[in-house]
């Protein structure tokens, strides 16, 4: 639409009229958008999604939601990392997955969330009111299809965990976990090596069904064998990826 003489100069409406191609909103600068379900949207669909979305920032170790909270929102991680866990009847905690930028959170729910979600470090998320999102999805089959096709939500994360728990030895589990994180990073447009580990060794053990000591021993063993290099607490370089893949598959 050509600019009109009487259009207000600084309103969003005016900016859209004068500079429709240059109006910046969170999606335009979102680094994970090409790797997320949102990539399937055309500009009009994207605008409709932005209209119902809020960007939220969560501090490290803060809850995003708790198990049994009313499931009012769906989230898309854009920065940071999240752990999801269930509280067992004996009071213990079972981590069932880790989610990273590009992953959706809160999709698998009924009236209440079936698990708790906590930020591992400073984390940014897009937050969508669930009912409004479900209403929009009816009009956006491309987004719905892409959400289903993605390997990036809590159901997928929980299925990954089942594969890891099926591995026999602690070493196989730890190696499979590192390779899984590496593959996931590549899938989301991040470097797959070195592997970023935003979770503690304790969280890792909880997720893999191993004690903290066993996880630490497995890391030491892999390092001694020259298969990995521990750059710091949060980063591991995969020195011999092929050998690691063989270990992961039980050879």
């Amino acid at each position, binding site marked *: 639409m050509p600019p009109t003489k009487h259009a207000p100069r600084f309103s969003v409406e005016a900016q859209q009229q004068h500079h429709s191609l240059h109006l910046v909103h969170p999606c335009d600068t979102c680094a994970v958008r090409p790797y997320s379900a949102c990539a399937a949207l055309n500009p009009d669909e994207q605008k409709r999604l932005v209209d119902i979305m809020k960007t939220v920032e969560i501090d490290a170790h803060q809850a995003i939601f708790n198990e049994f909270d009313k499931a009012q929102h769906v989230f898309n991680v854009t920065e940071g990392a999240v752990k999801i866990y269930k509280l067992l009847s004996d009071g213990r905690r079972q981590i*069932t997955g880790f989610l990273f930028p590009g992953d959706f959170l809160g*999709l*698998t*729910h*009924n*009236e209440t969330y*079936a698990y708790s979600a906590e930020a591992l470090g400073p984390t940014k998320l897009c937050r969508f009111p669930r009912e409004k*999102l*479900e209403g929009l*999805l009816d009009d956006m089959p491309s987004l*719905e*299809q*892409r*959400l*289903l*096709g*993605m*390997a990036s*939500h809590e*159901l*997928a994360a*929980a*299925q990954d*965990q*089942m*594969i890891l*728990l*099926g591995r026999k030895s602690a070493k196989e589990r730890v190696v499979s976990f590192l390779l899984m994180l590496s593959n996931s990073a590549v899938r989301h447009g991040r470097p797959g090596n070195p592997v970023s580990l935003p979770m503690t060794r304790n969280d890792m053990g909880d997720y893999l069904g191993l004690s903290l000591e066993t996880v630490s021993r497995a890391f030491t063993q892999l390092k001694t064998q020259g298969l990995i290099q521990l750059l710091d607490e949060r980063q591991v370089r995969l020195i011999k990826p092929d050998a690691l893949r063989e270990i992961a598959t039980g050879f």
Partner: protein
Amino acid sequence: MDERLTPRLLDKTTIDRAFPLVRNLAPDITLERWTRFAKPHLASRSPDWPRGLMTIQNAAGYILGLFVFEVRDDLYEKRVLCIDNIIIPNIPGRDAIWAGVVDAAEHIAAMNGCRTIRAGLADDLEPGARDRDQTWLTGSLEKAGYSFEGMRAIKRLEARHAAH
């Protein structure tokens, strides 16, 4: 991104992978219970009377839906495909997963000379989810050309057993 959904038979190596989906709809079911239920369904009674657990997977291999099937001999209708324990999560896109279930069931029926499919609704779900999901499931069945015929009577004996 490949967004196709594909039917694949569950086997002993993928029983565990299906568990999060089952737990999602029925939180009280343990992995042991699920495994004990699933294992016998993997083996056909004979090549002529197949049965199994069919999953609906996305291109990345994640299991998004599943159902139990069995070809049975019916006195009147001869070969009938029976499907039950249909598990479809309450997530956006579940209509597409349902379409995958319908297609897979019709394919199995055609392969096995069945002219009728009998679908049983999810009796094993926890009560709240059962009521809500059955409303959606019955609507989806009707849309897929299923009609509701006959009736099934159920008597729950837990209380009586507990008393003895």
